[in-house]
């Protein structure tokens, strides 16, 4: 959208002559350097990287930290009692009306690992690898509705139109694999997240950096990837040969370098038609690996086509597990940013299939084994130390029950409202120090120590990937735009890093 971008494109074209073969979302580093700064080997925003790639597990809807990570005996004590006024004054809620009752953790907690962290009985898998994970209990955000909160987290702005974290990262680092997109999105749970495809849009960055959603529901893994029926691979090759020859003739006639770029992009498309289905095919994995994740090749979840997937959630649905296994295959093949969205974590308890007492255990079952499997698999392959894993929702959930439908707890209708003031996320892998960070007050309402904001999280992610969050910018609309926004509030959480 501006001069820099156009220069980038011009450079890209020049680069073609030198190296022939423009990567997909993979503009090499040196192209970002203008002639004048070429003396420096790297752009100023590059710093030493701990992570080569990232797997971001976003639980869309936001799981309850109080039923998974926050063991609060005091909250159990207040269970069923009216919430003290001090917790309600001046607050805005999405759905809570009047004076709600407090709601204690619904499931048992036990201590795990060297750090002796309390983890809910719903997460045995995560508990088994807890010594590889850093649990951050002091997250907070500014947004308390799904769409804006997801956007703020993933794009740095609650409004639409900014580039996603994955776009920023591929813009800054490029991709390691010439035959695969650098930023891949995988969704499960039957629905795309609330804010839709804007969550992996490239905003004002060029569209080559937008996330490519790979689908696992039986259709093409990438839209339009399959040749039409009746067109064999050999025939496609022959038509492309003719196309290339004719484009060569055009280039001789007109001399526009863009024509050469087009030839190379058609060739890349041809290679992707092979490489993408290959990498997406988990049936080649041995059984013990499939079992490690709980993956089932070829499974198409009924939730993917259901009008309302909430009604048919099953604990043994392997879609998320399949996506975790895919994520490993993708990072193994040099994909820079793998973003998983799992829909179905919005447990208000106001309608069937979205409660803490009944739905949360099902959702945990869907993800827990897969996550432990992913961590163990990355470790046994030596990829854990160069892959950053992030897990979490877009905000937390209230210590009070949601009371807009009923004021009494009823089986299948335990629910909590959106809570931006405190929630839990965890990180693992590349350069992350296992343990626990931050804490909340005795009912989990406010953060007690070591606040971590969305900007801090974003800064930390960029930092681990080798991008200086403060210097990494792109000029647009009169500002040097950054993922972490115009202010310098964002800080790298160095306490959790090695």
């Amino acid at each position, binding site marked *: *959208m*501006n001069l820099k971008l*156009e220069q980038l494109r011009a450079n890209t074209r020049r680069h073609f002559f030198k190296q022939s073969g423009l990567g*997909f979302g993979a503009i090499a580093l040196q192209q970002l350097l203008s002639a*004048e700064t070429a003396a420096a080997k790297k752009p*100023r925003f590059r710093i030493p990287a701990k992570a080569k790639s990232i797997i971001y597990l976003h639980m869309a809807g936001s799981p309850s930290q109080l039923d998974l990570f926050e063991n609060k005996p005091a909250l159990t004590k207040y269970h069923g009692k009216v919430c003290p006024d001090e917790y309600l004054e001046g607050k805005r809620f*999405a759905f809570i009306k009047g004076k709600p009752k407090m709601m204690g953790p619904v499931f048992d907690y036990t201590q795990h690992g060297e750090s002796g962290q309390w983890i809910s009985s719903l997460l045995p898998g995560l508990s088994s690898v807890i010594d590889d994970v850093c649990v951050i209990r002091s997250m907070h955000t500014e947004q308390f*509705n*799904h769409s804006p909160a997801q956007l703020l987290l993933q794009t740095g702005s609650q*409004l*639409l*139109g900014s580039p996603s974290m994955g776009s920023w990262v591929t813009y800054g680092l490029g991709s390691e694999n010439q035959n695969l997109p650098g930023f891949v999105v995988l969704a499960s749970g039957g*629905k*795309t997240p*609330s*804010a*839709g*495809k*804007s969550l992996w849009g490239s905003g004002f960055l*060029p569209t*080559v950096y937008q996330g*490519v959603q790979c*689908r696992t529901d039986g259709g093409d893994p*990438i*839209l339009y*990837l*399959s*040749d*039409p*029926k*009746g067109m*064999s691979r050999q*025939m496609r090759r*022959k*038509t492309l040969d*003719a*196309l290339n020859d*004719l*484009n060569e*003739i*055009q280039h001789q006639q*007109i001399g*526009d370098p*863009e024509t050469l*770029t*087009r*030839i190379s*992009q*058609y060739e890349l498309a041809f290679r*992707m*038609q092979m490489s993408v289905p290959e990498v997406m095919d988990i049936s080649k994995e041995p059984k013990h690996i499939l079992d490690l994740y709980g993956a089932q090749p070829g499974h198409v979840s009924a939730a*993917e*086509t259901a009008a*309302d997937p909430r009604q048919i959630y099953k604990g043994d649905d392997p879609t998320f597990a399949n996506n975790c296994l895919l994520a490993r295959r993708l990072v193994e093949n040099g994909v820079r940013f793998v973003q998983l969205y799992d829909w179905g974590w919005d447990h208000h308890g106001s309608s069937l299939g979205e409660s803490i007492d009944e739905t949360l255990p099902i959702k945990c079952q869907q993800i827990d084994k897969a996550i432990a499997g992913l961590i163990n698999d990355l470790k046994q392959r030596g990829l854990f130390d160069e892959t950053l894993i992030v897990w979490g929702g877009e905000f937390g959930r209230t210590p009070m029950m949601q009371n807009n439908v009923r004021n009494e707890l009823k089986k299948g209708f335990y629910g909590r409202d959106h809570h931006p003031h405190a929630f839990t996320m965890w990180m693992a892998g590349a350069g992350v120090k296992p343990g626990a960070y931050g804490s909340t007050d005795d009912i989990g309402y406010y953060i007690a120590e070591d606040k971590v904001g969305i900007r801090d999280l974003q800064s930390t992610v960029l930092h681990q990937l080798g991008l*200086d969050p*403060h210097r990494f910018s792109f*000029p647009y*609309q*009169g*500002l040097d735009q950054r993922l972490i926004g115009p202010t310098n509030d964002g800080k790298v959480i160095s306490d959790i890093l090695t």
Partner: protein
Amino acid sequence: MKTLLAVITSTLLVSIASGVPPVDFNRDIRPILSANCFACHGPDKEAREGDLRLDTAKGARKMLGPVEDSELVYRIETDDVDDLMPPEDTGHVLTETQKKLLRAWVASGGEYDTHWSFEPPVKATVPEDRHPIDHFVGEQLKKATGLTPADEANRYALIRRVSLDLTGLPPTIENADAFVKSGDFEAVVDRLLGAEDFGEHWARMWLDLARFADTKGYEKDRHRDMWRYRDWVIEALNRDLPYDQFTIEQLAGDLLPKPTTEQILATAFHRNTMENDEGGTDDEEFRVAAVKDRADTTMQVWMGLTMGCAKCHTHKYDPISIKDYYSFYSFFNQTEDADRPAPVMPTPTAQQSEQAAKFEAEITALNQKLKAKPAGYAEAFSKWKAAFKKTPPWQPLKLAGMQSKQGVKLTQAKDGTLKVRSENPEKDTWTLTLNLPAGETLTALRIDALPKKAGGKWPDKNVALRELTAEFLAPGAKPVKLKLANPRADFSQRGWEVARAIDGNRKAGWAFSPKAAEPHVAVFDFAKPISGGQLRLTLDMEYGLGLIFESFRLSASTHPVNWLTASLDPVAGLEKIFSEQVYGPTRELKAQLETIQEALKGVQSRISKTAIMRELAGEKRRKTRIHNRGNFLDQGDTVEAGVPEVFGKLPGESPANRLGVAQWLMQPENPLTARVMVNRVWARLFGIGIVETEEDFGSQGAVPSHPELLDWLAVDYREKDWSLKQLLKTIVMSGTYRQSAVVTPEKLAADPRNRLLSRGSRFRLSAEMVRDQSLAASGLLTRKLGGPSVMPPQPDGVWKSTYSGERWKNATGPDRYRRGLYTYAKRTSPHPAMLSFDAGSGEVCQIRRVRTNTPLQALVTLNDTAFIEAAGALAKRMTDIEHGFRLVLTRPPTAEEAKRLNALYETMKTDFASKLEEAQALLQSAGLKEGDAARVCVASVILNLDETLMKP
């Protein structure tokens, strides 16, 4: 402005080393200061460091002076890290060239100029013997590079280029051949400017700016009817509505004196902002977001300025303060809409208006005829009236016995009224046996529902008669089921129409909320009249909540059924009954009238209701306060509506509302409006604007490559009554536009990005053009102007929206092949093929689209159903390969090209000969029942050629 006029060469080409051109503040210095210094030493007081500002001459004075004493020069050249500017931690570093420029500028006296775009444009004089565009472009090209413009493109390329540019569609072979023969380019241009395709093509540019979409955005992203606004834009462009009027109607059509429906429809421009239906969201928060979007978009679209930053703090680069922002915002903060659909307005299409008018005229005529009364009417009426009055129309029926599931007992008063005299159950079914008057032939049954008593056990006075059945009992015979017909009531609740009481379905029946406190009447005809014996009625009132009769009356009539109405007073309105139901001639007129009234209702119900702007009046007008740090919950000082101070005030005669804003934008003194628009049009034709940053004419934006040209075009546009068609004609008639796009090595070296226009501009077609061209060339394109959005095929499963059951249904028939402009635009899930080719999502104002070249695009044009079907249709349409080539590319193929395509054809033909099943499968994918699969492959290759995807 003296310096601006002197600036002819582009900054990109100035060789500082040669030392020839003197330093120019706007061209050379402001960009450096703006990018590196203004953030801390600029307009924003809050962020200002060391009480120093460098954006004004006054502020910078103490930093200048003789070079050796200049603080500025010291600060940028020093080795002392503590003193060095910009400080290291800002990430900004000055290049050697920039340092030299700053030093040279200080040495030359450090003069400041107003930012170039804030000075009104001036039309430079041009030689008479040369097209003004060619004069400016040619002079600069010569001066900067010594090169001369390219030759005129060949006629095939020229007509394809101008057809794509003006209408978004390729020329037909006939049109191309005619032009090649005649060479009359102006005639071609005039024809294209007059075509309806023109408005469809140029509407796309405007709809990007207007953030047009078919859905509301955010989480739910539900449908909303906005397509009539798109129709308005197409139509306005086709009739070349001058830009000032175009502007005024969209920003403030509702505020014009006696606005037409069309003028109000135009205000949908600013109702394209998003709405959030997510549960629990604060309407005010999203109303404010929409108003901010309107303020930002207005400034962006018309003045090319980004005010967005100023909503949180004073702009760091341009002189727009946070107070300026909220003063401007205040103009837009006075409309009724508040993150909800209202206000909407019925916006009929021309055809719908015509139909409605026709029906209305017919209704008037019939009413007149009815009023006039045919001859003999009065006499017939009095005769009938006498007959009617001879017997009472309704006789109450006497209750002979009853059963109640809940044991309810009814008593009957003298006048026939039945009353509950027992405990009142929540629900019940009654079977009532009623004596029929002996010796009478009974035609109809009437129920009088009398009001329940106030209060009591049944708080709701409504009654739900779910089902009513009737039987005829004759002594000694089996009961006979009676058919009830022609149900009518004086009032029915919505969804509980009286007909549902006899439809055999117990889900709903007759009820009358919210008018439950009043008496009501229902009448049913006996399909066959009855006489003697008894009538047995079963009343199902099993709904619950006590919705059962407490007091009612049952009667029967001996009158012909067309004498009977469901009115409380059966003898009221006798004349109406006679005229409408009894007397043949008038009854017929009435029947006709009803038919037409139904038809009119049908038309009216199909009229789209479009969201429009409506100004708040009087006490409802809002006070605007500054939102501290952009937070609408943290409100500061009150501000008055006004334009940013740097641009003066509203014109004296203008009102302080949106209309005033529109007039202010379009007044000749406004330095930006005309420049921004001509630059935008230029960019669509040449790929890059004269000011490359179309979205930013402020100090962070690019300087114009041809400032005098930009100003000449801007002033000329305004002087020629803001006519877009005239502006386009001026540009495309120039030699600059008509140059050949052939790139020579010298030109590539001297002018790599064609910023100097040393040759014709060759760049990729837009998403819509890529689609439309293949449909047009293959003959599939449906030519239909305007109308609701359509759903051409998209892969299954692309639409998966949270909590919204809306589905994408692949169109069949003509709607499958409409122009891309009409493709349904869902903000959270745009059509993936369009998205691949850089179309936007319509979420926010999109000033320009980036053009990328990705493998995903190749996959779309190779494999998307739309393009395979186009290949199929092209294969079928073309008489031979050369013809197919020409249908797409206009020009004939060279011998070499034809040879290569034929070779491909032969190879594929051989391959398919042994693979008949594959051949059949490919034909089927391409939408063909039979044909030559090898031709489909050739057609697909032609549709994928680089030349096809590019403007020639």
